[in-house]
């Protein structure tokens, strides 16, 4: 069922994103640098990155380990701060926000999907979603969010009773239930095999289409890159190349 739904929406994606790009960027990054440590042992995780990310855009951040893509994702998610440079979210500076404001930013705008799911083991699938809904203003009902990722029949299962792919889809449902402006995914398929990985990616694409959440997917898997509107290639803390896909591939077309 999910497959069919996706198939019908995939075609319109490219057109949509092109149209939205005109409305002003969701994120605007200028001279963004992140330095860990100091002196001789200092590590440049990010070196003066400039990037604009449009609303509704699905951007894949690609690169080897340590190239800076996760650091960027963490900064955009309000989990980390840059050493220098500026990040604007819809014109508002993340850099100038204090801890409390960053918490509110995450709470109101950001959905996260992590490599290791990070579900609360003591809550069922439905409750893991409701956990976030309790602090969101206009959330999707948990059952509906889980239905979207194809877990409508696993609502009352605990994480331990779900497979890895199912757990990750619960995480996706949890991330999208609050209809976030931004969906940040760090290696969402990193711990999964191909088949389950595809199902998770299908869910992500579906969410991006349906809610128009600006979506960033970090991966070191080059094939996943075909999924995005744009692919940003990282190397050694800087952007090496940005490609625009003429047509986004469907998750089912991917091989890795």
């Amino acid at each position, binding site marked *: 069922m999910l497959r069919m739904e996706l198939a019908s929406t995939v075609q319109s994606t490219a057109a949509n994103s092109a149209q939205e790009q005109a409305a002003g960027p969701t994120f605007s990054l200028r001279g963004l640098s992140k330095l860990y440590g100091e002196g001789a042992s200092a590590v440049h995780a990010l070196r003066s990155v400039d990037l604009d990310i449009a609303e509704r855009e699905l951007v894949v951040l690609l690169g080897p380990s340590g190239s800076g893509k996760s650091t960027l994702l*963490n900064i955009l998610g309000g989990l980390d701060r840059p050493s220098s440079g500026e990040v604007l979210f819809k014109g508002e500076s993340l850099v100038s926000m204090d801890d409390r404001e960053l918490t509110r930013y995450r709470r*109101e705008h950001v959905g996260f999907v992590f490599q290791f799911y990070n579900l609360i*083991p003591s809550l*069922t699938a439905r409750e893991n979603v409701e956990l976030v809904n309790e602090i969101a203003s206009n959330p999707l009902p948990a059952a509906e969010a889980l239905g979207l990722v194809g877990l409508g029949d696993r609502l009352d299962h605990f994480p*331990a009773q779900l497979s890895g792919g199912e757990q990750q889809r619960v995480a996706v449902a949890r991330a999208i239930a609050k209809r976030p402006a931004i969906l940040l995914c760090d290696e969402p398929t990193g711990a999964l095999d191909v088949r389950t990985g595809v199902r998770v990616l299908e869910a992500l694409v579906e969410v991006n289409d349906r809610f128009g959440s600006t979506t960033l997917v970090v991966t070191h898997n080059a094939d996943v890159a075909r999924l995005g509107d744009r692919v940003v290639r990282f190397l050694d803390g800087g952007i090496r190349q940005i490609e625009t896909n003429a047509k986004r591939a469907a998750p089912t077309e991917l091989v890795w």
Partner: protein
Amino acid sequence: MRILDRKLLRDVWRMRINAIAIALVLGCGLAIFVMAVGMRASLENTRRDYYAQQRMADLAVSLVRAPEQLEADLAAIPDVSAVDVRISGLALLDLPGMVEPASARLVSLPRSGRPRVNDLVLAKGRWPDPALADEILLNEAFADALGLTMGDTVEATLHGRRQTLRIAGIANSPEFVFVSAPGELFPQPERYGVIWMGHEALARAYDLESAFNEAIFRLSSGANSERAKKAIDALVERYGSTGAYGRDRMPSDRFLVEELRQLATMAAFLPAFFLVIAAFLVNIALARIIATERSNIGLLKAFGYTDGAVAWHYAKSALLLGAIGALLGSIAGVWLGRLMASVYRDYYHFPRLDFDAPLLTFLAAWTAAFVAAAAGALAAVLRAARIAPAAALAAPRPASFRSSNGLFGALARRLDAKSRIILRRIVRFPRRSATTVFGVSLAIALLVVARTFPAVMDRLLDLHFSQANRQDVTLSFIDARSAAVLNVIERLPGVIYAEPARIDSVILRRGGRDVEEALIGAPPNARLSRLIGLSEGPVSTPVSGITLSRALAEKLRAGPGDEIEIEQTRGRRIRAVVRVASIADPMVGSSAYMDLDQQARLFREPGQITGANVRLDSSSYARFNREIKETPVLAGASFLSLAEQSMRRSFDEGVGYMNFIYAAFAAIMAGGVAFSAARITLAEQERDLATLRVLGFTRAEVSYVLVGELAALAILAVPFGCLLGTLLAQWLMNLFETDMYSFPYVFNPGGYVFAILFTLSCVVLAALTVRSGIDRLDMVGVLKSRD
């Protein structure tokens, strides 16, 4: 150092807060153990040496009057190595600067040389000059309490004759380590002392020229004490003897033995309590280490380490904690012991008392520490050894939870998600939750016990001084007098009301058992001095027959309806058989009770009394005292308010002091349990809590999940802690019961409130301290880690 051992040290360092908590709790328990066992051994040694050096009497016998020639016959008894015959009596003292009359035991010194038995240690001054009848030695506790010194004089009424005595020296005797007036429950050094003086002077005062009324004996080594008693009895029977007796009837030694027994009880019970807690803390700490070390354990095994080697590796960290605790406990125990030894030395005037714990004590302490640590580690270590390497290296599955349909399920569905996390974790890990609840309960229980003691003391003093004894003063006469003497007493200044009293010192015998006790005669419907039973309230003495206190009845194995034989130890030594009418439960004392008139008739002194209980108008207090100091018939005056004061003081100094230490240790334990539980909960939940933070939950919301779990478990522990504390307190009160006192459990609501609030505060404080860890949660790191 081997790499693995280096890892071990770092592991312990990583959980240093838990390690400190464990070591402190272990240390507290072992400190009490070392202190109590060491103190007992030291006191035992001191007693032995003191008794040996000063030739403490093995046997004694008191008589009405025996000729001095009898001494040679007594000395010739085969088992006897030394004998002293002497004169002993009581005197009322009029001391400068003291309103109330004090009293003293008078003991004669040999005509020449030092006592062969019960020799004295001269603390200050010199021995009295035998040529000077008025020179005396005073016992040190009395002299210190009243600030008397050499050259000072004491006005004494000896056998109705007033005399001025001059202090030549201050001395101590093994016979009078504890000095308490006859009929008094507690030593009152400022009210009652011991005076040693020349034989001739005392003989004149008591009309005992060329005679004696007391003999004391040292037995040769290997002597048969029962045979010696029989031989002595055969010689002295016709001189009004009540029979030779051993140290078990010498009051001072009985007190000392009781003190030693209590130290032994303390050494056995309290440390065990702390060791259990320490084992429990080791268990939760080590279980946590091993949980986080799963993959390392897999790795070690993959490298080829055996199960045994892995188990030993983790067991060593427990033993290390045991060693730290044992070291702390040994040092603190010696320190406490030395402190206590100096208190004992000053209080009992031992010539020397050094805290010297036998090596075996430390050996036992260290063994106990290792056993407790190992016992605590056992389950966790076995778990480590059992982990299969492949399973340990693979990513762990999330802890499995199942939905429950029962009460918890229904409850969980009604809660918000954060509370649901708390509830599910508690229900899902019942053993872990139970250990936290258990630990907090123990802390509450120990504090309840510590706070029950003072309440029991208060109850005891209240019962004895406010309900049982409502007189202001008890007067005792030098011998039995007609009840008409009450008229004289009622005419003394300030006397509102006087009630007759009769106390006979008697030996009670039944079925080969004999006990020396006071037989207290009370008038029917006594208003002042009453027998109050623990549960039954005021008990009226039986019209016929005798009432025994429970302790006494148990010693004689007598019950209502049984016949017992009683014999006076003073006066006319009359023997009689009486029937036990009832058993009573007084909190204080283990006497026997009779109707006053019946008792007087029994001892063939109808209508005669030995004392009076008096209620005074306080405005005439000084005049009353001036008058009684001049009244020749009085042998002693006991002032209830003074007795209460001194009893309270000694409780505060002794029991209060120990109680303070227990309360402090209980607090350390409560803190230790709370901190361990809080830190471990944080460590276990770190990843989930960080995830919540990432998802946009505020610090306060995340703190709720952490603190909420601890708070819920702590609140759950409250009823268990109260129950456990109550049971422990009841058990302990029984354990500390002596001949003199029975300690009923007293419900002290304030104590419970204190125990609960204090422990919960510890938990909250611990939770708040740990909560600051939420501010430092590594939100980025947690997303990259598996678990």
